């Protein structure tokens, strides 16, 4: 009925980072008609920014490593809020996924005997991260991209999905999108939809995320009826660049610390020794000498405190800066220059070397870097059934950062790339099973709904005068940084929730100049509703979780509350309403862990 471009598929995958590519490959291998839709060019997704490696207990460097140790590290790192089944599947399956990448052409760094080399990272007991220098994400995305292309999967690049479509029974029937180059609309009818849209970082001022991290998947899933969980659990990566201001937030890989780099304050002290929490005291070194022995031989000493999980390190840096012991530009010092040879540094961390040399004029083989926390990742997301990635909406699946549960309250470094592979594949399988089982056979695109969503997206063009979308984005980022940052409290969160309502009013008065073809102002205007929805979810979750756990730190509730450690905060829109719909938030008990898995957690560290 609508005179617009339309395509029908069995499975559409929204997002072409690691999870989306892996899901599309899986569904395509099952002989289904598959399309991959992405906001940017293929191969540019945020996965490309992942540096350090992909965590998989292959035991190539330490034979003692196995899935049970990885499972335990992941659950403890996540402060036990993780869905146990996701952590179990992830730990068991990630080695196979890494080997599979190699069979598709990836070239990982090698051990002396020709196996895949593994490096140390925070929170992992053994050297576990398969890597390629410090550009592992690029290797992963390129390998998957080349595999997908060789399978002739249809790719719709620079195509932004604005809404999912529901059928009368609530199941998903497709999606509405527009081509960024032309601004023309396009609709997809699909029996199943896999969301793999990544994160939400663009709602904050200092973030490692690119412009794409606007929470599109989180928002369109909730608007379509899906549940979100643990949205308050947001990760501030401890080491982002802090200077010059224009690059503030850009990621500095944890690999710097895994390879021997240490954190120092303005007095030259390795301050992390003062911050080891009780939970990790038994397995963390208490002197520099012991920590330094560990790098060469993990049995000769306990791990250095610089390699505690990210939430601990980020909070410690924040405390040092607040206590007046920060670096000149408000961070702390990350020093690898005094600890490793220049040749080693350039070989193991080539892109860090270039990044600092070219953007900050700092030679990291001679000087310390200045670093501070940057918003990096959201652990919370769409609630999924672990084995299939299915959501509470029939036909809708999710994988990767947009899904919740796997990482609990804090994600370990390296567990994201493995998450993408393990659950990308599983969501692809889940979608294929659904389609093969007859799911979505009656799926039909509702033309009236499509028209409504298109009109909504074009509204900013109808106003002569109104809000500038960039000003709105700026105000949102300043507000979230100030009120929903790394350390939170009740009054500031209430303020944030109030301010978000004001911003929601303002976003309905945006005016956009120019035409529809490649118009970044308009593109941003269509991102803002999702950004406001996810920001609201983060603020609501942070308000209700009155405790400190992982990425959620409340100065008015500084301790973990054992009772709250037993619940997920589930958010949904029971009466619909999309962007303006009311959000309900309720605590629900975590799934009960079977005894055999619980026994693994309780086992004392070796």
């Amino acid at each position, binding site marked *: 009925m609508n005179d617009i471009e339309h395509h029908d598929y069995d499975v559409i995958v929204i997002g072409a980072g690691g999870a989306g590519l892996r899901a599309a490959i899986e569904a395509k291998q099952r002989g289904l008609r598959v399309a991959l839709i992405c906001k940017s*060019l*293929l*191969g*540019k*997704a*945020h996965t*490309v*920014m992942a540096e350090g490696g992909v965590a998989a207990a292959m035991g190539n460097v330490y034979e003692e490593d196995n899935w049970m140790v990885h499972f335990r590290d992941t659950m403890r790192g996540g402060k036990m809020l993780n869905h146990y089944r996701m952590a179990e599947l992830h730990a068991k399956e990630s080695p196979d996924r890494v*080997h599979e990448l*190699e*069979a598709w*052409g990836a*070239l990982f*760094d*090698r051990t002396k*005997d*020709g*196996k*895949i*080399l593994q490096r140390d990272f925070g929170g992992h007991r053994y050297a576990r991260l398969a890597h390629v*220098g410090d*550009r592992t994400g*690029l*290797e992963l995305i*390129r390998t998957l991209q*080349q*595999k997908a*292309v*060789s399978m*002739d999967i249809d790719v719709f*690049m620079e195509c932004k999905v604005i809404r999912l479509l529901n059928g009368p029974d609530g199941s998903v029937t497709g999606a509405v999108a527009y081509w960024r*180059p032309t601004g023309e609309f396009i609709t997809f009818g699909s029996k199943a939809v896999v969301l793999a849209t990544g994160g939400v970082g663009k709602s904050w001022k200092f973030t490692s995320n*690119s*412009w794409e991290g606007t929470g599109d998947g989180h928002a369109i899933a909730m608007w379509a009826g899906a549940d979100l969980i643990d949205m308050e659990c947001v990760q501030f990566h401890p080491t982002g660049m802090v*200077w*010059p*201001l*224009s*690059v503030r937030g*850009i990621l500095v890989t944890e690999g710097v610390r895994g390879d021997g780099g240490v954190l120092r304050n303005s007095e030259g002290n390795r301050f992390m020794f003062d911050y080891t929490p009780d939970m990790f005291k038994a397995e963390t070194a208490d002197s520099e000498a012991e920590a330094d022995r560990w790098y060469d031989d993990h049995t000769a000493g306990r791990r250095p405190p610089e390699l505690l999980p990210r939430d601990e390190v980020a909070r410690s840096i924040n405390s040092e800066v607040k206590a007046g012991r920060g670096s000149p530009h408000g961070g702390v010092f990350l020093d690898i220059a005094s600890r490793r040879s220049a040749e080693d540094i350039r070989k193991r961390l080539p*892109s860090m070397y*270039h*990044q600092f040399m*070219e*953007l*900050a004029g700092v030679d990291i083989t001679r000087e310390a870097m200045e670093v501070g926390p940057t918003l990096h990742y959201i652990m919370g997301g769409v609630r999924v059934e672990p084995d299939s990635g299915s959501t509470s909406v029939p036909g809708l699946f999710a994988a990767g950062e947009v899904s919740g549960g796997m990482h609990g309250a804090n994600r370990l470094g390296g567990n994201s790339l493995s998450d993408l592979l393990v659950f990308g594949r599983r969501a692809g399988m889940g979608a294929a099973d659904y389609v093969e089982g007859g799911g979505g056979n009656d799926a039909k695109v509702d033309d009236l709904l499509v028209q409504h969503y298109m009109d909504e997206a074009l509204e900013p063009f109808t106003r002569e005068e109104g809000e*500038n979308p*960039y*000003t709105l984005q*700026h105000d949102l980022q300043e507000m979230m940084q100030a009120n929903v940052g790394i350390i939170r409290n009740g009054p500031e969160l209430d303020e944030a929730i109030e301010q978000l309502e004001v911003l929601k009013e303002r976003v309905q008065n945006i005016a*956009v*100049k*120019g*035409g529809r*073809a*490649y*118009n*970044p*102002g*308009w593109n941003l205007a269509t991102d803002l509703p999702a950004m406001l929805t996810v920001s609201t979810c983060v603020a609501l979750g942070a308000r209700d979780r009155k405790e400190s756990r992982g990425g959620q730190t409340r100065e008015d509730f500084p301790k973990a509350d054992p009772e709250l450690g037993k619940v997920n905060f589930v958010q949904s829109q029971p009466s619909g309403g999309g962007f303006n719909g009311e959000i309900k938030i309720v605590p629900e008990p975590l799934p009960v862990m079977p005894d055999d898995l619980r026994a693994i957690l309780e086992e004392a560290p070796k």
Partner: protein
Amino acid sequence: MSDVKMRIWRGDKDGGEFENYSLKPQEGEVVLDVIHRIQATEAPDLACRWNCKAGKCGSCSAEINGKPRLLCMTRMDQLPEGEEVTVTPMRAFPIIRDLVSDVSYNFEKARQVPAFLPPPRPEGGYRMSQADVERGQEFRQCIECFMCQDVCHVIRDHEENKTNYAGPRLFIRYAELEMHPLDTNDRRDLVRDKMGLGMCNITKCCTEVCPEHIKITDNAIIPLKERVVDADFDPVAWLGRKILRRTKRTPAEASVQPEA
């Protein structure tokens, strides 16, 4: 400090013109920062492609003062002080709008690459030595900014060559697969006959613009040319190759693993 003066091409496939913008400078800024400030204030519809803003994704390729550069890795204070900064889209590709060009040519050529084809995975996994993987790793650093394609003389001013020419970005891909310790798929005739490897006359312009400092000409194109050398061009090499030209690794050969 005096204002920064930007001269930015605005338009689409039907034509366009330069527009001038003048802004207060900010410490440590890159060209992309300045463009973002222009978008946020006077020209919200100024089209510019970007993603990571850290030199890792290769999205923001354009031409600064006539030279292909990543907008996110070019600091304003490294450009001649006080002089106007001219920013134009990559010239070798069709324009979409303003600084955004249509780079689909590169994706089409990527689709034509015959897939990686390893032998079945042996018990205990593939073994490869670090020295062997490093050759391919150099080429896999490529961030697909396509600036090497943009600057390549074979297509920069000869649109007609695009049909039969894959370009430096794809030549390093072919070289990487050719040198991959596990690959068994022979693409040498294809790269010579259909991908135009012979049209490259090794002026090294691609190597010069590569933001990843990949030695495209020396380490990929020249070795690739040697491997596919054609009898009509070089009888001596042909004779040599007749005797010495290694056949592509067979699956059995690729299965031989280095000693543990």
